């Protein structure tokens, strides 16, 4: 846990703590660019120095349940594979259900994409939990499609082809327009048109679930999610 030869001792550990805090709270991996923008200037760190800090933070995790890992889109702190079986237990007990908060968030991304987290929160009137976005990203239904050019450059989210596959749609146009969603009768009619009446297309869903199991970074929704 303790560093040996870092000159200004307190700041040093502090920088790594700030990095740790950011990585543990973020929705997904943070790129070196993002991290540099978030903390580089404040601490007077070059990109290279930042990389060194990250390496040092990674060392700190040597004996932990987590590890700091660089993936394609940046750095993230993740549970080590040897603990994933335990984590799986979290989601085994109860058949996980998608919470209303998750569904609303997904629906807003579908209909209002590209949309920022803040804009979702504006409509929903409540904050969107980091894990909801993570689940949607993990599930492969949603992805970052860019950044809004306002201070902070918040990520913009949009749907993926996987979303269409999993929901058995050929294109988003098949979904009823908003006014029809509002009217319950029209909504039912639209669902009937899609063959998605009261009974969900179970077979299709199962097929998809199996198909995507091998490689999708598939994090199930833990039971708590249904509480929100």
């Amino acid at each position, binding site marked *: 846990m303790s560093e040996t030869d870092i000159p200004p001792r307190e700041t040093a550990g502090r920088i790594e703590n700030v990095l740790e*805090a950011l990585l*543990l*709270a973020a929705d997904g991996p943070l790129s070196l660019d993002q991290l540099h923008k978030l903390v580089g200037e404040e601490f007077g760190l070059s990109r290279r120095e930042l990389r060194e800090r990250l390496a040092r933070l990674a060392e700190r995790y040597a004996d932990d349940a987590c590890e700091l890992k660089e993936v394609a889109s940046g750095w*993230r*702190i*993740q*549970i080590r594979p040897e603990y*994933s079986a335990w*984590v*799986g237990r*979290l989601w085994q007990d109860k058949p*996980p259900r998608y919470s*209303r908060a998750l*569904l*609303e968030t997904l*629906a807003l991304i*579908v*209909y*209002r*994409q*590209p*949309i920022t987290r803040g804009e979702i929160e*504006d409509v929903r*009137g409540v*904050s969107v939990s*980091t*894990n909801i976005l*993570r689940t949607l990203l993990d*599930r492969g239904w949603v992805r970052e*499609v*860019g*950044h*809004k*050019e*306002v*201070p902070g450059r918040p990520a*913009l989210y*949009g749907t993926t082809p996987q979303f269409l596959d*999993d*929901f*058995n749609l050929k*294109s*988003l*146009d098949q*979904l009823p*327009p*908003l006014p029809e969603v*509002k009217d*319950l009768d029209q909504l039912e009619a639209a*669902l009937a048109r*899609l063959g*998605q009446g009261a009974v*969900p297309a179970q077979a299709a869903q199962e097929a998809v*679930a199996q198909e995507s*199991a091998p490689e*999708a*970074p*598939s*994090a*199930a929704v833990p039971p708590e999610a249904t509480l929100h």
Partner: protein
Amino acid sequence: MNAEPAVSEHRDSGAEKSIPKVRGQPLVKLPDDLYIPPDALEVFLETFEGPLDLLLYLIRKQNLDILDIPVSKITEQYMEYIQLMRELKLELAAEYLLMAAWLAEIKSRILLPRPPAAEEEPVDPRMALVRRLQEYERFKTAAETLEALPRVGRDLFLAQARPDVARSATPPPPPALRELLLALREALLRAELFARHTVAVEPLSVRSRMSRILERVERGPARFEELVDPAEGRAGVVVAFVALLELVKNGLLEVFQETAFAPLHVDRPRARECSPMEET
């Protein structure tokens, strides 16, 4: 305490009639202790959480303890406010009028000599008012305390991590579309999105195309032709074009051209201090 603009604005806006009057006298000056944002009189009522809040304000304004309310004076001031609101034709919640009536009643009961026979009713009528004010003030304070507490999502953030691959966890099947749309319906009804946005005819393909274009441009500037594929046919081109326009309108993209007749390029906008387009 510059309330003048609000009033003169009314004067400018036309006829004599629009000058507010209080008790028949044209109102040239707002009451001294009346704080109203100069050009937003309408904000006034929203500033107060109701008649009790307004009364508390009036009392505090004079550095008085609730227990020492000079009812007559406060009542007069309160009435002035109410009158002013009415003259300005601001919508006044019924509660304010109810309070006005109550204050008037209290005042009259204090002023009127008590008939000697009315032994049964010796309680000072102000007592009930004092108690209500006190009670309200406690919760007003408690609300401030709650607001000051650290709150998850605002001052507190949860540390979360997941395994790279959760092997043992089979993902739940996707929810039925029906569930998704019903959830959306709820969210939209709640937000009254329909009232504020005219998105009725916007085809969803435009929305998804917006995402695709953004994603492409995120990797670097794109030539206009790259984003509009004639193979998609007329409808496809229109969708791409509308999506582009929408993105530009929202300040998410910029279209530029090196010289006249040069190919059109599309790129992320150069970061600005502040986006002129906050609205989606």
